[in-house]
């Protein structure tokens, strides 16, 4: 990692040059919601003026650049009663500007899931390698809880990360590509003063979180509270619509579907993002459903995010962006569900006799 300081004006010129010559996406104001709040999304941008650098949050996450809602896995061409299969991993180079630390953390988690093990996904790798990620820090929103998940800072997974230190940006340069681009622009090495300002900025971000979730020992609590009435309470509210998984930056579950082309000369195997809250997620041939109830499926989602993944990959898959909580039509959010569960745990603990004190 190489650190540089760039003035905000110069940074804008750099972004403008980058955006004008590459296929780029950045946060843009697209609408206002029913409460009058601005709705931002990562959309194509062609000049720096279109980018809302001070955006609050995007409704959808950046995962859709890497895991599109629909993605062709392979194609079959039919001829003379036979077929040929073709697979393509091609991805066009893309620049994404303005990802938050938690969004980049989410990409790192996806890297863990999709590029490790015996079966790394070449589809994902091609897209990840062809994406130029520029991250920017921000002051947390009232409902962000990424500090609780330890994802309010990100050490890796980006090409360039900008921290706002007043009139300038403190740049963390994490790839030779970014370094070469920046050579053409006026940057300088950080001095003591700028380092102090960066430390202050980080302290400010860290102390600005207003939502906290205690996730200590959560995997064990989830294990113990498997039959807790909390799941029925929240499950009865859940509409099983799958919105939470669609906006989640780390949800990657999918289904595979196949369809003929209209001329019947070819067919495609497509992967479509799915949600474990949808009713047929755990259905098997013959009609048996292993998770038939709303509560079962909601519970499974929390188990995968906070327990199962913690067991497999030593970290929880949730990054604390609270997109699911904002998007949920039934008002279910991780903070309430997990706190509810902990409450359960605490009331249980009152009946346990305290350990004897040493006198």
């Amino acid at each position: 990692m190489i650190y540089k300081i760039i003035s905000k004006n110069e940074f804008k010129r750099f972004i403008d040059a980058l955006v004008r010559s590459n296929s780029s996406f950045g946060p843009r104001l697209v609408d206002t919601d029913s409460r009058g709040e601005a709705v931002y999304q990562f959309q194509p941008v062609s000049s720096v003026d279109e980018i809302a650098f001070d955006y609050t949050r995007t409704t959808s996450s950046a995962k859709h650049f890497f895991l599109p809602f629909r993605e062709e896995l392979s194609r079959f061409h039919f001829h003379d009663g036979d077929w040929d299969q073709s697979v393509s991993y091609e991805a066009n180079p893309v620049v994404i500007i303005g990802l938050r630390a938690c969004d980049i953390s989410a990409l790192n988690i996806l890297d863990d899931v999709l590029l490790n093990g015996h079966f790394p996904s070449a589809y994902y790798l091609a897209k990840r390698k062809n994406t130029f990620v520029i991250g920017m820090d921000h002051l947390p929103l009232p409902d962000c809880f990424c500090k609780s998940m330890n994802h309010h800072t990100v050490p890796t997974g980006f090409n360039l990360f900008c921290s706002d230190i007043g009139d300038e940006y403190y740049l963390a340069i994490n790839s030779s590509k970014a370094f070469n681009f920046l050579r053409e622009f006026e940057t300088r090495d950080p001095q003591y003063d700028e380092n102090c300002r960066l430390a202050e900025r980080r302290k400010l971000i860290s102390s600005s979180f207003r939502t906290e979730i205690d996730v200590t020992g959560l995997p064990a609590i989830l294990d113990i509270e498997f039959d807790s009435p909390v799941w029925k309470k929240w499950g009865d509210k859940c509409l099983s619509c799958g919105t939470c998984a669609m906006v989640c930056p780390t949800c990657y579950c999918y289904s595979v579907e196949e369809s003929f082309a209209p001329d019947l000369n070819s067919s495609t195997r497509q992967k479509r993002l799915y949600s474990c809250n949808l009713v047929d997620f755990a259905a098997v041939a013959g009609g048996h459903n292993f998770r038939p109830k709303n509560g079962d499926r909601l519970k499974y989602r929390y188990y995968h995010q906070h327990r199962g993944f913690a067991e497999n990959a030593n970290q929880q898959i949730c990054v604390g962006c609270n997109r699911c909580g904002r998007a949920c039509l039934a008002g279910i959010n991780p903070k309430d569900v997990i706190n509810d569960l902990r409450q359960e745990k605490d009331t249980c603990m009152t009946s346990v006799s305290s350990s004897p004190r040493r006198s």
Partner: protein
Amino acid sequence: MHDQRFVIPPQELNREDFASSVPEFNRRAEVMNTDMGYKCAITNIVRLTEQEKLFQIRIIDPGERALFRFRPGQFLMLELPGYGEVPISISSSSTNHEVLELCIRKAGSVTSALFNAGEGTRVAIRGPFGSSFPMDEMAGHNVLLIAGGLGIAPLRAPLFWINEHRNRFLDVSLLYGAKDPSQLLFTWQFNEWDMISHIGLHTIVEHGSDEWTGKTGMITDLFNDISIDPGTTYAIVCGPPVMFKFVCGYLDRLGIPMNRMFVSLERRMHCGMGKCCRCMVGSTFTCIDGPVFDYWSVMNLKEAI
């Protein structure tokens, strides 16, 4: 406006060739690329019952055929181009490298289309995937195989294995239950298993018919017919979810250690590679950690059976 001294030419951020990242792939141990399937031809179709057929398939390319090896208990993804892909357990002998046998029940859109396919149809397979029965660990012990209904399909591979290495095992019994006599699968092999391989075969059906001279009842009734030495017995169980609880519960009470009971679970896998999460139980993937689990792992998995 736009600074003339600097233009990032479009090719600067050029598409990274996938080939250049392949070495990175190969550096990891045992990486498999399974996005392309092996092309197979259906060589033979045997109708077993109204709902089940046995498909014999053969990988067309000799090189690919030589590469495809599996262990008893593993499954593969069978693709009928245009219709979709289904996970199917392999029912043939793991030492038979010429043809693969898949016992398929007509249950959904893909399997229905397969039932209409004739011999010679080209299908694709990906795999093999998943864990297998630890046949080497079982050697030198009694083996008790318990199958309910279509559960005989995944058990046929270990049965073949035991047949071919019969002298490595002590007493071997197969308890096999079905709804009615017409639902019993692989009946033509019963004599071979019983007479030649000395596998103690006990069948039972829930509802008998006029011709049926065997026993009627639930599969657990068969436990009265055999004597089980819990100290030296390995059990392999496969059947509908409800069967596991009764059978494994019984064996547990009998004193067979949980790590010597193996079950083969059913889930609707979509990828087979631990990516789609459709087969996930708790923190465990049925496709890469399973489908064969020891009973201890299943006991610890909520919603597994």
